[in-house]
């Protein structure tokens, strides 16, 4: 056998290149012209060469992150706290240069229409183009602060909020922002009846008495309302332009609104970036809004590349072809080569992983027994789970994740005690254990960990107290459907809050959405259900925190769950990238990223 020398390799590579030309020559004929061009070429995009920072104004730093801070009391009337910038009047345009940040992520785009937007990363992209009344600073999710509202006040009964709209703000179209735009957006989100419409369920009416005043009236008191106003779903867009593109805000919008397709390739917001190009499953190119009212984005362009394989994200990050990798798994971050100009940012998420036990004896059998459920909570090896999930994960004792008001924190988690667990099994009449199906989705993951792996871990732990779990692997859609139709006897899933308030976690209360999926009805635990209801409308923070703690302890004792882990978030980025910071509300604030 002959050896292969460098010249042979060069020849081979040249031959391959030649073959490729032949391939192209033999390429298939062009497909029929599409009804509309899906993406326009990036006519303005240029090679990503570092350029001087295009900063026209010094950022007016707002309050530092305050993860443990209490939420702002909505019944008070705060002044214009933490204004992002005062320079809102007739600013000169900042020219767009070539400073580019490239981010690797899994797009997961369904829409960029703020009235329909609900997916995680598209929400991050949306937040860069569209701004709401409020915002959260840094990693904080508890203290909503001013963004497009300069001040707000709540009525004494906590049901009416009056916002003053920031002066001098213009949309990318050049049209000025008025409260009528907010009214249009709020009415539209409600009447579209899309994914996020339920967020507006408590909004009874929206009024714009003058261009600078917005009045929102709620049907019932909602301590989470101000936080909700920081979500991208309640961001504003140019209603005049949107109407021209078929947007409708009146009742019946679910059938008459035609603007969704337009929002996919265009933007009409006030944010630091505008949509330059969207090529589905390939790239999203955002370009700095040259007429942004606040502190301009520090980079001129953000390219979000669809890279669905985390291993590819890791390689390209280390190689320097991307600047930020958002989807690295815990295994990959462990192996990340920090000598290659890469840094790792770690924080906790606001998500959780929990195991659930069906309370209906006809479905759950022995696992519907409250003592069996208690036994399982004592049998689980939580330290092992933290290690398994890795990547900054912490223990989660009950339904409220750390970062929310009243969270118990990881130290309150059950201590593994097999003897006590066996005692409880005996008390329940199952001293010899039992067999049960653990249903799991084939490819689903939470916190970067496959549900199948969680099932295997629980199988090992529960075997110690005589419970034999038979892992039933289902396709993801079937698994989700069975869980939602209360047919799953035992399972483990992930959960992420819909909005940044502890109230959101009351979904785990008896009679609420997660509760009902495990047949835990309100009448099964009326005291806990009543506490949840009361805490949902309590405006006094101190009282609310105390109630929330009580609810958690009650669910730790009697709930059909084992809340397991609060996963971490790990983001790999190049060392010359600054401003990487995770906030569960908007993931990354793209406008604050910088590249040195």
């Amino acid at each position, binding site marked *: *056998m002959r050896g292969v020398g460098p010249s042979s390799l060069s020849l081979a590579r040249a031959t391959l*290149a030649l*073959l*490729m*030309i032949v*391939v*192209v020559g*033999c*390429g*298939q*004929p*062009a*497909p029929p012209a*599409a*009804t509309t*061009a*899906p*993406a326009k*070429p990036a006519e303005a*995009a240029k*090679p*990503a*060469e570092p350029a001087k920072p295009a900063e026209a104004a010094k950022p007016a730093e707002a309050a530092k992150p305050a993860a443990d801070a209490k939420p702002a009391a909505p019944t008070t009337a705060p002044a214009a706290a933490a204004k992002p910038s005062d320079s809102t009047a007739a600013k000169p345009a900042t020219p767009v240069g070539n400073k*580019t940040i*490239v981010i690797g992520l899994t797009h997961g785009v*369904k829409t960029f229409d703020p009235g329909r937007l609900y997916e995680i990363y598209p929400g991050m992209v949306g937040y860069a183009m569209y701004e709401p009344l409020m915002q959260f600073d840094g990693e904080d999710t508890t203290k909503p602060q001013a963004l497009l509202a300069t001040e707000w006040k709540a009525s004494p009964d906590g049901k009416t909020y009056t916002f003053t709209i920031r002066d001098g703000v213009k949309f990318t179209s050049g049209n000025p922002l008025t409260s009528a735009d907010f009214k249009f957006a709020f009415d539209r989100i409600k009447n*579209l*009846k*899309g*994914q996020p*419409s*339920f967020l507006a*369920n408590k909004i009874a009416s929206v009024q714009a008495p003058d261009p600078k005043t917005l009045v929102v009236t709620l049907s019932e008191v909602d301590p989470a309302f101000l936080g909700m106003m920081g979500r991208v779903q309640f961001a504003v867009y140019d209603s005049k332009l949107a109407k021209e593109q078929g947007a409708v805000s009146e009742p019946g919008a*679910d*059938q008459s609104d035609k603007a*969704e*397709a337009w929002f*996919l390739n265009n933007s009409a917001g006030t944010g630091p970036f505008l949509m330059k190009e969207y*090529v*589905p*499953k*390939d790239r999203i190119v955002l370009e700095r809004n040259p007429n942004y009212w606040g502190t301009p984005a520090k980079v001129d362009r953000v390219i979000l*590349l669809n*890279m669905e*394989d985390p*291993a*590819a994200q890791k*390689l390209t990050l*280390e*190689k320097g*072809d991307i600047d930020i990798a958002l989807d690295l798994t815990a295994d990959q971050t462990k192996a990340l080569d920090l000598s290659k100009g890469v840094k790792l940012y770690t924080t906790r998420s606001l998500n959780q992983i929990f195991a659930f036990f069906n309370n209906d004896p006809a479905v759950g059998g022995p696992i519907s027994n409250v003592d069996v459920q208690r036994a399982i909570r004592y049998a689980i090896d939580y330290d092992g789970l933290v290690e398994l999930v890795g990547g900054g994960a912490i223990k989660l004792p009950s339904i409220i994740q750390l970062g929310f008001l009243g969270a118990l924190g990881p130290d309150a988690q059950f201590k593994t005690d097999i003897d006590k667990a066996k005692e409880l099994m005996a008390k329940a009449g199952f001293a010899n254990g039992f067999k049960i199906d653990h249903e799991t989705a084939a*490819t689903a993951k939470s916190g970067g960990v496959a549900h199948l792996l969680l099932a295997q871990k629980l199988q090992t732990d529960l075997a110690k107290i005589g419970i034999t779990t038979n892992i039933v692997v289902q*396709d*993801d*859609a*079937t698994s989700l*459907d069975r869980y939602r*139709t209360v047919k799953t006897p035992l399972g483990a899933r992930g959960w992420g809050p*819909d909005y940044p308030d502890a109230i959101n976690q009351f*979904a785990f209360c008896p009679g609420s959405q997660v509760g009902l999926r495990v047949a835990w009805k309100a009448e099964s635990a009326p005291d806990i259900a009543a506490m949840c209801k009361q805490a949902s409308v309590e405006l006094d923070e101190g009282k609310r925190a105390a109630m929330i703690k009580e609810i958690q302890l009650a669910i730790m004792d009697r709930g059909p769950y084992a809340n397991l882990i609060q996963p971490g978030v790990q983001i790999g980025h190049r060392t010359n990238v600054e401003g990487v910071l995770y906030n569960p509300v908007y993931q990354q604030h793209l406008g604050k990223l910088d590249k040195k």
Partner: protein
Amino acid sequence: MRDYILRRLLLVPPLLLGVTLVAFVLSHSVPADPVSAHLGQSAILDPAIVEAFKREWGLDRPLHEQYIAYLGNLFQGNLGRSIVSKRPVEEDLAQYLPNTVLLATAALVFSAVLGVPLGIISAVKRNAPIDHLVRALALVGVSMPVFWLALVSLFIFYYRLDWVPGPGMLDNKFVAPPTVTRILPVDALIAGDMPVFWNALHHLVLPALVLSSFSVGLIARVTRSSMLEILGQDFMRTARAKGLRERVVVLRHALRNALIPTITVIGLAYGNQLGGAVLTETIFSWPGVGRYAYQAASSLDFPAIMGVTMVIAAIYIGVNLVVDILYGVLDPRIRVS
């Protein structure tokens, strides 16, 4: 031959109609609810949202009505709107399919150019060391998981050796040329943008090689066994007895006869590469139809499932037709009158 091709072409519409029926029934018989797959944990509890979702996607109508409505749209050239991408399915396919066709065609060329010669050499040098090596390589190619090969090759050739660019179809520093054919290198040529053309070709090499690994092995094995069978026949001895050069004997007399099963395998491999490039597309961030099909199936995106199934079926039918015609070209005895 012309009549034969015409007859085959006339069969395509009823075949595709059958495909729509089978795909519709199968995709709707999955024990899962698309409402559950698409609406979030809180939205699904709101009856108004659920009702609007069902109405928007026609899920509030009986199955037979949904199918009839689908056919009605289909006859007007409308494949419906994808529940996930919210765009017309034909628009999605027009975007993703050319990327996969490019990848699969490049992989097919690699498969044929590498697989057939390896099979010939292996057969001619039967039981020699080169034969053992080729058989071992073919076995490795057939049995190696494509995702593993993709990751390892990306690590070696991109990360370590820097011979090829990273995932994606084009470096970020380049601007895609205006869309004409939707095949990136061709569009680059049309635009006269040679740097983009070369960069696009560089991006194509590794994923195409990885995708071809299975079929290279398969084609080499099939060509070898087919060649061995032919080489042992009487007419080969006759050819040699006539004093023909060994090269002519092997390439003109043996190979031509041995190619029929190989052509069948190449045709099937092309179909597989078009429909089954999911893992390669995922790891190499290649925005192709394989990934689109996978997402459609896993999220019960019925219009997309139907669209992809029909297009892949049409391609299979087309490839089979080409293979049948090639049979006739290779062997006049089976030429259809």
